[in-house]
């Protein structure tokens, strides 16, 4: 079966010629494998016993009280092995790499969650793994750097540009161009040249499939609204996809407003960006009038990205998903609130989705809301401590 390369006009393969044959090979391999029974079984087995799926859909009663009494549920991706939804994708892609006969994997990482998930999957399959990570992110996410090293991966600091996720992706692509024969590039979000956005989406769709089944089981109906944070956009696409045809389910993506949209220091590519080409696809970007990519800003390294997956650009234009934004401060407040009131320390990324519920008015006790809690916050404790003045 073929794999889509465009979402409306977005997506495509804006990437050096050297890489194109590898993308063709990947699209072919994935097209053959995705509906192959053996492949599906192998993947489902790993998702169950290694990743720890299904993850629960948890009724957060205290959070519900703060949201006008609406019934608020958390999709607990934070309970996945390695602490975030990222492993759903890397386990799938490493299986692809194995089937394609690749002997080395590379990945980029922002918050370090995808790097850890890639290193974990590579360790599981005994493949050498190199992770590119911006120097600024290495500073912010020291814990994840140590985890990757413990898992046997080599972490390569990236000092070009803004020294964050976007530059790590550039560097991973450069590595891939150079080692195209034996290397598989595990992209961590629904970004990059086709077929990556479709592949990553497919591997993350398990989140939404489970949530749909659990919603029907727990509440006997579909949710009124599903909320997820959007950086590159993999956890949100993952939970949104099985609900796209359900017109009654409102879908809300929450971008990082950083220090405020008006300050220009944010990561809200859809809310405040323009169309352009970055990392192989046409989507919304933060850029200047000459097309130079601007540095994104967010307290959360995983949302600190000046682009967004092309399918999100399409869903925005179609009006199917409503994209909003939340500031660093609001995210931090939600981080504290969820920790204190629910006993769950969320990732700063996921705290953006929580913050949206707290901020939005008009919820009533008839509303049934699902928030994707995409990751846990252990990696963020140093940064939160600093921002909240808890540091010793």
């Amino acid at each position, binding site marked *: 079966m073929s794999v889509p390369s465009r979402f409306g006009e977005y997506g*495509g*393969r*804006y*990437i*050096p*010629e*050297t*890489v*194109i*044959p*590898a993308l*063709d090979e990947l699209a072919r391999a994935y097209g053959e494998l995705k509906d192959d029974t053996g492949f599906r079984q192998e993947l489902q087995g790993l998702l169950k016993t290694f990743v720890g799926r299904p993850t629960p859909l948890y009724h957060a009663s205290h959070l519900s009280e703060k949201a006008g009494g609406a019934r608020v549920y958390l999709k607990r991706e934070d309970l996945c092995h390695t602490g975030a939804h990222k492993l759903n994708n890397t386990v799938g892609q490493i299986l692809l790499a194995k089937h394609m006969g690749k002997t080395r994997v590379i990945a980029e990482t922002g918050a370090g969650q995808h790097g850890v998930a890639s290193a974990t999957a590579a360790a599981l399959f005994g493949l050498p793994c190199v992770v590119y990570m911006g120097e600024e992110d290495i500073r912010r996410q020291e814990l994840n750097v140590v985890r990757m090293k413990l898992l046997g991966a080599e972490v390569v600091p990236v000092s*070009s*540009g803004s020294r964050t996720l*976007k*530059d790590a992706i*550039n560097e991973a*692509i*450069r590595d891939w*161009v*150079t*080692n*195209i*024969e034996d290397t598989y590039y595990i992209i961590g979000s629904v970004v990059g040249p086709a077929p990556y956005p479709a592949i990553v989406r497919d591997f993350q769709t398990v989140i939404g499939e489970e949530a749909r089944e659990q919603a029907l089981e727990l509440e006997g109906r579909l949710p009124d609204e599903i909320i997820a944070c959007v950086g590159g956009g993999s956890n949100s696409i993952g939970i949104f996809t099985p609900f796209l045809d359900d017109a009654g389910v409102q879908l809300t993506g929450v971008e990082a407003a950083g220090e405020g949209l008006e300050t220009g220091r944010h990561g809200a590519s859809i809310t405040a960006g*323009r*169309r*352009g*080409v*970055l*990392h*192989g696809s*046409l989507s919304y*970007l933060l*850029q*200047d*009038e*000459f*097309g*130079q*990519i601007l540095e994104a800003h967010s307290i959360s390294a995983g949302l600190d990205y000046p682009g967004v997956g092309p399918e999100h650009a399409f869903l925005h234009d179609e009006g199917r998903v409503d994209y909003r934004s939340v500031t660093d401060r609001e995210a931090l407040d939600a981080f504290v609130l969820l920790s204190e009131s629910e006993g769950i320390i969320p990732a700063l990324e996921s705290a953006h989705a929580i913050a949206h519920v707290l901020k939005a008015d008009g919820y009533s006790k008839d509303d049934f809301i699902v928030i994707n809690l995409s990751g846990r916050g252990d990696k963020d404790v140093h940064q939160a401590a600093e921002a909240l003045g808890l540091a010793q």
Partner: protein
Amino acid sequence: MSRLEQTFRESGRRTLLMPYITGGYPDVDGCRRVLEAFVAGGADIIELGVPFSDPLADGPVVQASAQAALDAGVTLKDVLRLAAEFSDRLPVVLLVYYNCVYAYGQERFLREAAAAGVDGLVVPDLPVDEAEEFMAGCHREGIDPILLVAPTSSDERIERIAGSASGFIYCVSVAGVTGARTELSDSLPSFLAKVRDRTDVPLAVGFGVSDAEQAAEVSKHADGVIIGSRLISIVNEAGDIEKACDAVESFLCEVNRVLV
């Protein structure tokens, strides 16, 4: 026939020398002087880069030069002005990443490039599959869209690229990013022969050509040789712009002597 094709034709069988510099590097005036050194050193075609924040086909040397130019405030308009200053004397090819074209507006970009006398455009992140509209726009403005072909390109893709190419075909010497390398790939001659079999369009080789010896080797098989990272390194190492231009000129003269 385009000016680029004319230039290749008139050279007879001699391989053309095509030096590259990032537009506005080390600064706008310094770049102008380096371009003068290109002319004095016997360049046949000038390749000028539009600095971009995220040049993913480039190695560290070109990346750093682009960042330095951007930090100094260089924009597309400066690069087009530099192109206009030299395009009376030599054909000029711009290397530009696609977002710089897209953000500026493709039509407006092509119109202004044509007005500056630009002869060809190399867009390293716009493979032939995505380039249809861009190529049509180039042809309307009398600019050659320069397509790249890589050692990884399949026979089918080489055929497609060869069938759409005009001006010259930019043959990437190795799977990788730009940057000087100590050795050329052993498979370069067979790769070039494979492309040659499918087209009459001239073939220029770039990515990794770093000294006269390698240029001489390339010139046995190709119609043009592109040297970029090495020239930027020469500029970086010279200390001041005066010395940089002298060093660039004498390097190009040395290369020119060995081209066949």
